[in-house]
């Protein structure tokens, strides 16, 4: 099994600068600044067809190529806000293989000739962020970060910034606002971050996920063709799958894209806890539609395009597995409660709609649900989806619509048999 990212599994000390460099660390950055032009660097990443690991799966090289060539000041922002429920891959990368993330970020910075790199860590990562600053200092001492990098005259420092613990700040434009000291709310787009007026301090900015950047050093050293040999043509490379829930061996699994759901869940993650049957899969945390664990799903390959074809999304690959005893209404209620808490409140449908849905679920779980509530669970999500300022509104309706589609009978039981369910019916 090849580990491009979770190299700490083979080299436990790779977080140390000397160990990292002894194992080829920073060779990619050295190669780029000495032998490649920024444009060539972008081209290699574009040719590798590396796709963004934060959730959207957009081509990383293309994203970099959108930076206007005449831009005077550009930035790279590393999205380490890892806040999707069930996602814990970036934490492992930053803790166990941090220099690879720094090197990837510096490669992105070199490709767009950025003035600075900002690493935006979620607020709960404070311990990790402090350690990361030490790692950056090591790189700075080695002239890999900071002024006159490797004697090339190029200056670019890396700064770590801690968020304040808001899910929405994983959304890139809200992240940029938060980084600027503004309220963490998404911006109107266009302009997009890569465009003038859309990025950090309104300068063109590349925002990449931690895992995405961690792929880049390998690609620069080994070339785009080598990378494309891993995974599938549309979804090349390896991907870290965060497997949690009712599973025997929860954890991060880095596997080539293109293996099947079944291989991931049963071969790598040890199958379902206590030998129970798998009922449902959330392939991308709370934000992607839940999949019913049918054979069609289990035998489908884990690629961006095939998961999309199943009606869900690979997203950040946070696999939350639910066994046969899981109450899907309860699960949806949990997710809606999460989105209601995390809606930033900027735009009306998401702010009001998630509040409304949360009220309905609370009533269902209390055993006081009515047919009107079920009607509303079908109507309200459609009032939210497609008209919100950012994607959070669209994500927020997925738990409702997908569980209604696959598990409608469980909802009906809540209405007709109020005593059903893990939480007893309670009067107000």
């Amino acid at each position, binding site marked *: 099994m090849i580990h491009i990212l979770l190299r700490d599994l083979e080299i436990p000390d790779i977080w140390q600068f000397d160990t990292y460099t002894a194992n080829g660390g920073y060779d990619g950055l050295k190669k780029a600044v000495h032998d490649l032009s920024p444009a060539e660097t972008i081209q290699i990443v574009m040719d590798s067809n590396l796709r963004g690991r934060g959730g959207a799966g957009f081509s990383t090289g293309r994203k970099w190529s959108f930076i206007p060539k005449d831009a005077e000041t550009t930035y790279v922002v590393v999205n380490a806000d890892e806040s999707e429920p069930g996602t814990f891959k970036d934490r492992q990368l930053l803790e166990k293989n941090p220099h690879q993330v720094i090197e990837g970020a510096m490669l992105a910075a070199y490709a767009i000739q950025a003035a600075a790199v900002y690493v935006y860590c979620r607020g709960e990562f404070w311990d990790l962020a402090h350690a990361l600053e030490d790692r950056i200092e090591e790189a700075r001492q080695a002239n890999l970060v900071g002024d006159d990098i490797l004697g090339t005259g190029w200056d670019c420092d890396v700064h770590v910034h801690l968020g304040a613990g*808001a899910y*929405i700040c994983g959304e890139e434009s809200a992240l940029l606002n938060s980084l600027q000291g503004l*309220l*963490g709310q998404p911006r*109107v787009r266009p302009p997009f971050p890569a465009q003038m007026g859309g990025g950090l301090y309104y300068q063109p900015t590349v925002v990449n996920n931690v895992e995405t950047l961690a792929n880049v050093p390998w690609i620069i050293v080994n070339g785009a063709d080598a990378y494309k040999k891993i995974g599938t043509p549309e979804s090349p490379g390896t991907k870290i799958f965060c497997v949690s829930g009712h599973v025997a061996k929860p954890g991060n699994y880095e596997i080539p894209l293109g293996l099947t759901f079944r291989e991931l869940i049963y071969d790598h993650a040890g199958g379902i806890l206590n030998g129970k049957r798998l009922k449902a899969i959330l392939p991308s945390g709370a934000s992607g539609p839940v999949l019913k664990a049918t054979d069609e799903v289990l035998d489908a390959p884990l690629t961006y395009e095939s998961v999309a074809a199943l009606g869900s999304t690979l997203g950040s690959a946070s696999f939350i597995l639910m066994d046969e005893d899981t109450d899907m209404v309860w699960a949806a209620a949990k997710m809606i409660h999460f989105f*209601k*808490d*995390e*809606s*930033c*409140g*900027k*735009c*009306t*449908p998401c*702010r*009001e*709609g*998630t*509040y*409304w849905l949360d*009220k309905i679920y609370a009533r269902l779980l209390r055993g006081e649900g009515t047919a*009107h509530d079920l*009607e*509303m669970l079908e*109507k309200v999500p459609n*009032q939210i989806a*497609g*008209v*919100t*300022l950012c994607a959070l509104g669209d994500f927020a309706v997925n738990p409702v619509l997908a569980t209604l589609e696959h598990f409608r009978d469980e909802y009906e039981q809540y209405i007709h048999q109020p005593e059903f369910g893990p939480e007893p019916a309670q009067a107000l």
Partner: protein
Amino acid sequence: MTKTATIMIDDQTYQVPDGINLVDAAKLHGITIPVFCYHPKMESVGMCRMCLVELGSISVNRDTGEPDLNDDGSPVVRWFPKLQTACTQTVRDGTVVRTSTAQVLEARDNILEFILTSHPLDCPICDKGGECPLQNLTMAYGPGRSNFIYDDKLHLDKHVPLGELIYLDRERCIQCARCTRFCDELVGDDVLAFHERGRSLQIVTISDPPFDTKFSGNTTDICPVGALTTADFRFGARPWELDEVPTICPHCPVGCNLSASTRIDRDFGGKKMIKRIMPRQNELVNEIWTCDKGRFGHHHSRAADRLQHPMMRQGGEWVKIDWATAYHQIASKLKKYADSAGFLAGPTLSNEDLWELRQLAELTGDTPRLGVWPAAMTGAGVVAQVGIGVNTRLQDVGPETAILVIASDLEEEAPIWWLQIKQAADRGAAVVVANARETKLDRVTHTVVHYDYGDAVAVLNSFAARARSRRKTSKALLDNRVDGYDDLAAGLKGTRVPFADAADVLLDAENVIVFAGAEGLTLDQHRELMQAAANLLIITGHVGRQNNGLVPVWPGANVQGALDIGFSPETTASLIDEPPAMWFIGGADPAADDSQAAHVLANAEFVVVGAQFMTATAAQADIILPRQSFAEREGTYTNGMRRVQRFYAAQGPVGDALPDWTIYAQIGARLKGPKPPVSAAAVMRAITQHVPRYAGMGYSSLAHVEAQFPDVGGDDLYYGGTAYANHGGLGVQWATDAEDDSARLVVRPAQIEKPEKSGDLCIVPVRLLYDRGPLFEPSDIMHQRVPEPYLELNSQDAAHLSIADGDRVMVTAGEIQIETAARVNGHAPEGVVLWPRRLAHGPAPALFSACSVQKIEE
């Protein structure tokens, strides 16, 4: 707006100015795209999602540039797959939008249903009810019934004070952020913010004192619901009971167009009273804003201690007399003293009052002495030459324009101009702030000139010298229209240019506007400052055009009118130096402002004072004439940009008080003058016939209104506030000589006269917006905003005197001795004691009077 774009709205083709907001473009043609968060004065944020429309663009063939056509000949439209917010779009050729399809109507219905889920629907007790965008749009587009279960509604605090002026009703708030954006973006005061997120998102004030901005009231106008209300008006009346009366703010030279919302009210003896003041849209003056002094400072018009009857002093007692007696007494005194009478007009006298006062004065002699008060600023002739160009719109000013503000603390003296200049700076205008001390305007620019008090004229002279040395002079103007240039040039030769960078900012701009105040300047120095400003503007050719020219920051609402009608500050100075035997004073309070004037009045033989209150000056009168406030009568004011503007009678009468013009005309009639005019309009007609600059400014032309852009004051359902609509007139601005190609322009060397430093510490009076002047003090609601009397000391000076910030001190300046508080915050230059005018009652020391300051030990 030269370029137009061809767009399609609801399958009809329209021409609109290119690049304007789609919501505004539709509104221009009477098509409603409803909004809550969007406001044409602010950047769009796309938050409320009310303006969702179907949006597309006409597909154009890349090679030919021609539109692609369908088989039926209609253009191919590329539609966005999802609905888009109209407010985040600017129009360009080929924009296509559908505003009323089933999909759009359903989306609006849905958004309204969402907004109403969290709204308390307490319209029957809400101040906004009746002029509420949410109420209006719910009626127009709402679902009629809600699917939301009422018991699920979130209830929040309803009476949250954001400071003492503005109250927040948390459950009415729809999180549109208009108020926070107004404070953050337009004003730049960091006072309001959102707290929390999601459905808990709420407005909080983050300043101490709370909501610490001079523009807070504007947030209640732009609030699209009843979430923000003023302490002045909340629960005071229902909008539909109110009669909106157009008026003009009497407090400063901006001349904000206001609307007095009036009602017959038991609180005012069953007479019509002002329930609130709101801004009235005039894009050429205050746009849709006003400051909190203008909004909340109207209570003087119905203050309990207003003078109600004419009174005469008899044996040290005030005796009530009737008007006939008053007229007769005064007429006989004027006959007696004839040309040894002096006339003094205050800054809130209307043009009609001023005209009739002059008519009265002229009955006493051929060259009556007509003074204006405050006599702090002069330059009528300079303004007539190079005053700001006609139709200047400060809100259009951008990178092509440089604005110099000199010798003025503009936020305190003319807040709306400050606001407009701040926004111009945001749009890229180059702002140069020149003063002897730091002012709040400094923060909008990098180009700040701090000179020593007394050097203001030298700074402007050096700018003119720089213009010459850099050959930035206007040859066309100098060759053909300017007199006196050789003298000026000779005078400028060898002038040192200590602030060359600031000079270059002005010289490199396409347009230059100069705002000139008089802080730290004597009247003589101010005359030279105005001339120096005129010199600079003339030789560089920045005159006679829109967005170019000089704006004096006059010390009052109608000082410009007084100068236009023939009153002068120089005469005032001579009246104090060579006092007349009889004083006739209208609407001025020199005794409170100037200890020398107080002394002179005390020694006069006979003093007549027209006043609203028993001021220090009125207290020295032999006869007091109760004058009506701006609220009870009609009239016109001429603002600092020479715009003559009408105000209308908004309030029922108080006692026997009369408009000044009536009083003066009645006295005149007893001096064999003409029959008194029957109306203010008739007086204005006389002015138009005798004052050439006012020709054609009859009351009907002053009341003329044209469509304005952006249109915020119309009958739309979504901008809210019924008061914006301007039914009172946009006013008429008189043109300067510079705008007349055949007129000569005169320059002359401006003399630098350094003040005599009479001691180690000298007093420099400064103007504050919130003071204890007679027209502001009756507004109790503002008392927390008026600082306790203080003076400001330089930190070095304070250290020498062992005085710390906040210490009580005794100040002695000549005969004046006052106990007050000391502020030491780094704003006062060394050797200078800043003395806020009208903060303390009692006599005020003159400019540059020597003083001593002693700490009072506890």
